């Protein structure tokens, strides 16, 4: 069987639970108030009765039985108390009661509470409890003085009524509050749920309304939105990457096709060997695969961060790279120098960082004209971060384009004609991002004698903890 929908809602169920706990606590408090009030009322009655008894025994001790008799008669007519004066056998002498409430009276002083039937002047019959004390006087006579608890009872009755009413109101308000809160929550959750449903159905643009009120649901909504923003951005990036891959693959494919066609014509004309033509095709296929692998590596870095990181000395890597690239640089007629501080521990994926450093060194060598210089530095910045930098005296990158070349899949027009996939810096950027580092492009040493202004590319890595 299904519960009514309201009862199935978490907020409402929580409200009910809370109300039950609250009602239990309130009952305990009310019970305590009730008993404390009852006790207080009863002990007040006792104090009053005791005081009245003092006065009367005082009269008896000072002026004798007759005076007491007179006093009792007086007080019976006007007083707030019930009286009974008896002789030593218990026979009534005077008073408002006809017989003593005690069936047996032992000792000199005894307290009792008993029901008393009284008729009020307006004719209504009331049966209040009477609390009283009976004492044996010096001459053997007995005197009973009792106080009706009728006021106390009325007070307690009113109190009980008030307490019940209060409890009822509390429960009603609580219930109403619970429904309200649960409705409210449901509406807010519903808004979030609607966003989730919309996203499920493929609308990545759906966003939860956020009021910046700072409550948890608002935060949840904001979190959901951030998540969706990120998702959308990475979807866009994937789409963008897809376009870029298509573009990057189209050029070499087109080139391969053209070369194969030329090779076919040449082979038919007997100008070249068929083997050469196939070799050309293989080279083009290799460059295509390289592009594809780079794109894949970038995507994986962006999706999963740097894999398989370990602690190693960035200085060793720099030294190895300098050693590896120096001959190629010198062969091109460039002056290659390296300045490497020792002991630069970083935590990272060494092959990817090697690739990143290789890419910027390779770029520097590729774009710097013969006669120029390339300098590799590895140092600890004053911030403690580890910095690789490669400075060249090539044409540099115009300031307006520096941001752009770091962006994924962006190529400057004048570099499109150069060999290479054009993904080199994108991969460097992805590697740095995956390591919590950054890439900075800056002006080189400036323009002089047909060189420059040059480019300085810095890779900044957080130092190992």
């Amino acid at each position: 069987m299904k519960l009514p929908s309201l009862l199935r809602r978490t907020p409402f169920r929580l409200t009910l639970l809370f109300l039950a706990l609250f009602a239990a606590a309130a009952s305990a408090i009310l019970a305590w108030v009730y008993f404390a009030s009852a006790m207080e009322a009863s002990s007040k009655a006792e104090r009053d009765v005791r005081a009245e008894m003092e006065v009367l025994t005082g009269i008896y001790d000072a002026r004798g039985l007759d005076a007491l008799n007179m006093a009792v008669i007086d007080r019976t007519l006007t007083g707030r108390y019930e009286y009974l004066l008896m002789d030593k056998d218990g026979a009534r002498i005077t008073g408002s009661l006809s017989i003593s409430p005690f069936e047996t009276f032992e000792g000199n002083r005894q307290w009792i509470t008993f029901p008393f039937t009284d008729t009020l002047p307006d004719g209504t019959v009331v049966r209040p409890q009477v609390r009283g004390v009976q004492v044996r006087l010096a001459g053997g006579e007995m005197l009973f003085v009792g106080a009706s608890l009728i006021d106390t009872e009325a007070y307690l009755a009113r109190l009980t009524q008030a307490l019940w009413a209060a409890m009822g109101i509390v429960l009603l308000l609580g219930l109403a509050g619970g429904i309200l809160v649960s409705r409210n929550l449901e509406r807010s959750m519903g808004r979030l749920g609607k966003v989730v449903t919309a996203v499920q159905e493929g609308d990545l643009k759906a966003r939860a309304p956020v009021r910046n009120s700072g409550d948890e649901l608002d935060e949840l909504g904001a979190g959901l939105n951030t998540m969706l923003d990120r998702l959308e951005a990475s979807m866009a990036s994937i789409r963008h990457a897809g376009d870029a891959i298509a573009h990057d693959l189209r050029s070499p494919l087109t080139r391969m096709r053209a070369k194969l066609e030329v090779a076919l014509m040449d082979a038919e004309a007997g100008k070249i060997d068929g083997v050469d033509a196939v070799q050309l095709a293989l080279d083009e296929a290799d460059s295509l695969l390289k592009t594809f692998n780079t794109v894949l590596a970038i995507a994986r870095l962006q999706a999963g961060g740097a894999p398989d990181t370990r602690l190693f000395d960035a200085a060793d890597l720099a030294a190895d790279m300098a050693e590896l690239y120096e001959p190629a640089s010198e062969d091109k007629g460039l002056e290659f120098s390296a300045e490497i501080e020792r002991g630069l521990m970083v935590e990272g994926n060494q092959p990817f960082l090697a690739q990143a450093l290789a890419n910027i060194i390779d770029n520097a060598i590729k774009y710097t004209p013969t006669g120029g210089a390339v300098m590799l530095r590895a140092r600890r910045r004053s911030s403690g971060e580890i910095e690789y930098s490669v400075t060249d005296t090539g044409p540099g990158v115009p300031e307006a384009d520096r941001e752009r070349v770091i962006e994924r899949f962006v190529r400057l027009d004048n570099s499109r004609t150069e060999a290479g996939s054009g993904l080199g810096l994108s991969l460097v950027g992805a590697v740095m991002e995956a390591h919590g580092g950054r890439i900075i492009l800056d002006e080189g040493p400036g323009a002089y004698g047909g060189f420059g202004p040059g480019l300085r590319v810095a890779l900044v890595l957080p130092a190992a903890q």
Partner: protein
Amino acid sequence: MRILVVEDDAEAATAMVRGLTEAGHEPTHAVDGAFGLLEAQKGGYDVYVVDRMMPRLDGIGMVETLRKDGDQTPVLFLSALGEVDDRVAGLKAGADDYLVKPYAFSELIARVEALSRRRETGSVATMLKVGDLEMNLISRSVHRAGREIDLQPREFQLLEFLMRHAGQSVTRTMLLEKVWEYHFDPQTNVIDVHISRLRAKIDKGFDHAMLQTVRGAGYRLEP
């Protein structure tokens, strides 16, 4: 050389078997890890070429089982997974080398031959000798026809690798991986420049050039 090719992709396997046969080897094909294991247990193979991902028993499982059985035949892993941790996992399982798909066939042949060669020269040599070229691994000196050749440390390592694989093609990627111990794409052929410097030292002034370029593959040191 008898080579066991364990590869579930029929087309890739056919190409590999044909290429290996043309290179003068005797390849046998097994369609997955379980068959590969059965075939390997028959014995008599010089190298196993094992695809990493296969149905039933994958490459890792197969190689782990072989190694547990005490089979020390060199293993070349083939994988479409190029990430570093995949490479590490493959080598940990007991593979001796790792080649990422797609690969140039010359690269595969060079690596397979390098693996079998490594097995032959398992003993610790103090002297390497190829033709009239001699390398003393203790004094770290190199002589050709009695004339001392002065080499930088890296050039020495490079030559040592070439001498250990004399008569056999080694690719640029192999050199970067085995001599420099780096796994990345150097973009331009930086290795070529190192080779040409080494060549200038060991071949210049001699009538016979030992360090030869193998078109489409890499380099080969000939006696």
